[in-house]
């Protein structure tokens, strides 16, 4: 096979393969995003509300549940897509040899990898749509502009799917995913303006929060749901675009090295 990149519409065939599997266990895929926001809203909204009360964000006073609702979608997008292209893709690549089988057909490596990333984003968008329905019913997200969260979830999903795929390309064994999760995903989950505004962080830590993708995804999610923002949406959108381009390129590079031995 040529080392030059070859990408065509055929990637949808691999995407379709994942959809077939997803539909087989649709109940599981449906219930998690349905219950997850309810648990969080119950725990933080009712459990914490007495302690926290209002949150000041973007110059506006907000109830705590309203503040975290868009962030719940953003973090779900992150975990759905990142876990898909790490654990799930790794299992397909390493244990099930699914990619090996595909590489004996007219599919190219690029098509397989792009399909995996796009699939992870699709899964994230589906989860976001279900969560959106729940959170909108609870009055925590405004409609119809909140519907923009679905395409946003897809874009965020591509970003986290791409970096997940990059880790899949370099990780020696499946247990070692603990490392990027502990060093990258968990801190982001906690410190990206998700559960408290980054203005609460010490001055010197703030640039760190601004440097991670979840911050920008959360910002955009909040802007779409509530119309309030802290950072210019153009900057966040630009950041996510750059992130996607950079990590998709890296993911393709390391996966080629890994698979074409």
């Amino acid at each position: 096979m040529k080392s030059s990149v070859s990408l065509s519409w055929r990637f949808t065939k691999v995407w379709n393969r994942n959809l077939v599997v997803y539909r087989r266990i649709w109940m599981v895929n449906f219930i998690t995003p349905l219950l997850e926001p309810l648990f969080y809203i119950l725990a933080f909204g009712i459990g914490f509300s007495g302690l926290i009360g209002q949150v000041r964000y973007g110059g506006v006073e907000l109830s705590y549940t309203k503040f975290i609702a868009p962030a719940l979608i953003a973090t779900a997008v992150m975990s759905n897509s990142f876990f898909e292209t790490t654990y799930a893709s790794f299992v397909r690549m390493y244990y099930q040899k699914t990619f090996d089988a595909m590489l004996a057909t007219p599919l190219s490596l690029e098509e397989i990898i792009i399909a995996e990333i796009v699939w992870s984003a699709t899964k994230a968008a589906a989860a976001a749509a279900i969560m959106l329905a729940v959170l909108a019913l609870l009055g925590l997200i405004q409609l119809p502009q909140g519907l923009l969260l679905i395409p946003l979830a897809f874009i965020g999903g591509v970003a986290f799917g791409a970096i997940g795929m990059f880790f899949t390309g370099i990780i020696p064994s499946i247990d070692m995913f603990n490392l990027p999760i502990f060093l990258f995903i968990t801190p982001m989950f906690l410190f990206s303006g998700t559960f408290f505004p980054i203005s609460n962080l010490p001055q010197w830590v703030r640039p760190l929060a601004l440097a991670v993708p979840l911050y920008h995804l959360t910002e955009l999610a909040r802007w779409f749901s509530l119309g309030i923002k802290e950072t210019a949406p153009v900057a966040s959108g630009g950041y996510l675009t750059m992130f996607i381009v950079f990590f998709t390129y890296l993911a393709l590079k390391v996966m080629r090295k890994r698979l074409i031995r």
Partner: protein
Amino acid sequence: MKIIEVQDLHKQFNGLVAVDSISFSVERAEFFGLLGPNGAGKTTTIRMLYGFLPSTQGSIRLFGMDIQQDWRQIKARIGVCQQDNTLDPDLTVEQNLLVFSKYFSIPKREAYQRGAELLDFFALSHKKNAKVSELSGGMARRLILARALINQPDLLIMDEPTTGLDPQSKHQVWEKLETLKAGGLTALITTHNMEEASRLCDRLIIIDHGNILVEGRPQQLIAHYAGTNVVEVEGASQELRDYARLNHIEHDDLGRRMVLYGPDGSDLDNTIRERFCSAKCIYRNSTLEDVFLRLTGRELRE
């Protein structure tokens, strides 16, 4: 036009030579064998053939097209049965065929029909809705073959198609392959099973250390390198050794044991039986395994 044409193929991995210089060609409707000990370069060669690996040097043409340039058209016309079980455990037996047919852009209706025919041919129709994990080793192998045939390939590439199967399953796979062969299919097979190679292959090459040791038809190779009949003598005496040497009888001296190869029309069996068989002696026909061991040596690999 030749189906496969390989010229001066060379592959290096980090400075290590896996395939040195291999050239061969395969004609239409021919079953061609690629034999060799572990690490000889078989799987590497096969992977380069179906465009999985780029070659370091040399040319590979399938159906007259270059694999580096026209890999997509070539891959659309070949079926590959890999050594590992690469079936999709997340899908049912039938879904494995249907999802795979999409990779070849086969229209849905045609894929259903073709899938049903293949399941029938490989005696898997009753397992249509089963999970792949519920299949026995033989069934899984048959499904991999069925999947490799979903695009009605002009060339079937098989990497050890019967390794690890019980005798019943193995013979069933052989019968299916013979039926396909009678139907005019072209195939390339690697195998460690010499019975398989002599039974299925019209022509074969034995490779070792990345080079071709020999090429020919199985029977012709056997006659040339191992005669027609073999006598294995346990506890071979010095007299037997002298006798073999003096009479220029082809033989391998393995210490306690001696293997002697008798050409067509020789009276080797009787001579040994009467004069040199003190303990256990085995009289049998020469096989491809004799050829293989004589050419690649008896030392363990790996």
